[in-house]
């Protein structure tokens, strides 16, 4: 039963069947090894393309948006409105001398940026962009996300430590304390959604929002969890107001002071893709991911919403969140290192725990919207 007239034209809400590239490869395997290999290759190409393209796009966007916030134009020279600026910069970074400073721990110095980027790539694998565009899915998805995002700090710590530079060292130590602390709050916020969705599988979490996104279905708890997640994950990706490990005006670049050329580019790329990932996960957990805007029961309305492809929903939500994070950066000053820790341990963490407890009560008594469906 629908309230909207197009119901006659539009069929009942689409049922989203999730087919990840990995599962396709797995199903193809007994039949055709070639097909399976093709799917694996496709997944690899997809991840690399996603990495490169989002990287390029985000860096360009950040510059443009920063420019506009600051009454500037941003890049304007390379290509129309400077759209090839990032490409030009990438080429510059590629051909730049890639040096290891004197007295640095050579192996670790070289490995660190790869570690940082590896964590990012591992997270990209599981990010559900649409029902069909997800490289892999797993039943412990949330645990995986939490574990891997904590792994990224390794690269930063090693990079800072191996540089043989006191500024880098301070930056790395700050990063270690910061990322590990905020990991807790981010996880607590995600657990709220896990409670509601009843699954750790990311595609399952998205599908659990077919009747409405958790941010509003879960009453106030969802909003609080969302705010905590946004704050904590902004801190996790070292962006203003939590760019303490880099601290341009304090540490002169922090952990990547001594990096140049391609390895600096890796840190840089990892940082931007992390922003995309954080926005993507926030969208997935709280804004329904690729799930269109649905209201449980309003089938006609829901099917109108389904006309917009799932991937576009994801892109729109993620872009909005990316803009939010950039907006933070171009508005706020930076916190001090101990204030940042205080914010985590004295404000976010208690609020997060209380919120999780409240969420448990809400789930227990089925107080959220459309509990039956």
């Amino acid at each position: 039963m629908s309230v909207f007239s197009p119901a006659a034209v539009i069929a009942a809400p689409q049922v989203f069947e999730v087919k990840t590239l990995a599962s396709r490869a797995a199903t193809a395997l007994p039949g055709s090894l070639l097909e399976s290999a093709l799917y694996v290759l496709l997944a690899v190409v997809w991840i690399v393309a996603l990495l490169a393209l989002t990287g390029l796009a985000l860096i360009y966007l950040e510059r443009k948006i920063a420019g506009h916030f600051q009454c500037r134009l941003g890049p304007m020279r390379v290509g129309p409105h400077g759209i090839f600026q990032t490409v030009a910069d990438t080429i510059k970074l590629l051909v730049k001398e890639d040096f290891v400073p004197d007295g640095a721990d050579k192996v670790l110095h070289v490995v660190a940026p790869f570690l940082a980027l590896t964590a990012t790539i591992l997270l990209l694998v599981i990010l559900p962009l649409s029902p069909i565009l997800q490289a892999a899915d797993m039943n412990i998805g949330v645990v995986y996300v939490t574990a891997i995002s904590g792994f990224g700090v390794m690269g930063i710590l090693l990079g800072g430590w191996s540089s043989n530079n006191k500024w880098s060292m301070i930056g790395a130590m700050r990063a270690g304390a910061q990322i590990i602390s905020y990991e807790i709050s981010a996880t607590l916020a995600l657990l709220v959604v896990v409670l509601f969705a009843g699954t750790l599988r990311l595609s399952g979490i998205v599908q659990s929002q077919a009747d409405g996104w958790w941010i509003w279905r879960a009453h106030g708890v969802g909003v609080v969890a969302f705010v905590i997640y946004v704050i904590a994950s902004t801190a996790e990706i070292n962006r203003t107001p939590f760019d303490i490990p880099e601290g341009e005006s304090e540490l002169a670049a922090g952990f990547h002071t001594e990096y140049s050329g391609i390895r600096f580019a890796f840190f840089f790329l990892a940082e931007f893709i992390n922003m995309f990932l954080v926005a993507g996960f926030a969208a997935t957990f709280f804004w329904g991911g690729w799930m269109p805007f649905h209201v449980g029961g309003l089938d006609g309305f829901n099917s109108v919403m389904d006309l917009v492809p799932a991937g576009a929903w994801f892109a729109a939500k993620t872009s909005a969140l990316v803009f939010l994070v950039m907006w933070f950066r171009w508005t706020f000053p930076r916190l001090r290192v101990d204030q940042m820790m205080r914010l985590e341990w004295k404000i976010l963490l208690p609020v997060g725990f209380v919120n999780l407890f409240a969420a448990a009560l809400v789930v227990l008594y089925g107080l959220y919207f459309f509990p039956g469906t």
Partner: protein
Amino acid sequence: MALFDPKGARAETRQVAGKSVAVLLAPRLVRRGFLHDVFYGLKSLLTGMRVTLPYGLTTSRIVTRQYPENRGTLKMYERYRARLTFIRDGQGRHTCTGCRNCEKACPNGSIIIETAKGAVTGKNEVQRFIWRFDACTFCNLCVYTCPFDALEMKGDFEHAVFDRRLLVYNLNSYAGPHASLWDKVEDEEQRKTLATKISPYDGKVPLAGTSMAGCPARAHGEGGAS
């Protein structure tokens, strides 16, 4: 009660340095416990975000000007001190007498004047007015002290060259007397002699105005941007 009250400054009168002074006391910040601080802290952040949002979303507040593109319309203010030049009348005559007041006024010796007895008038006249653009600090004292209003600072831009020796100028393209003396010269030939352009300067600073590899010759004395 918000954390910061902009109107919270208290006015009072204080005795300082033997006088009573009207002062405005800085407001202190209000802290009233956890919930109050978190709520108003968040609110203050949102206030800041509200201020920046219109900037981020629209392009109307951009103030950047794109420089080489707007070169044609770019106007410097008339008083802008960029390049020392002679003021010339319609016939291109200057009013410098070579009195050296500007040379003496120059704080760092950027001006060197060479004078000689003029062949035609028999009076002391300026041979070469050398201005070292590379050393000049644009303090304007030469223009200020000139008793004959012979100098001015022009507002052109784009003076970059690849060799600082090219920044040594000879301001007078002809070695001649003060403009008022010209009228006393009646002979047409002599006038021509007066207006003859002098050769590129080859005195103490040899390269001024001449060409060298990679640097095209520039007319000395006139024209800034080429």
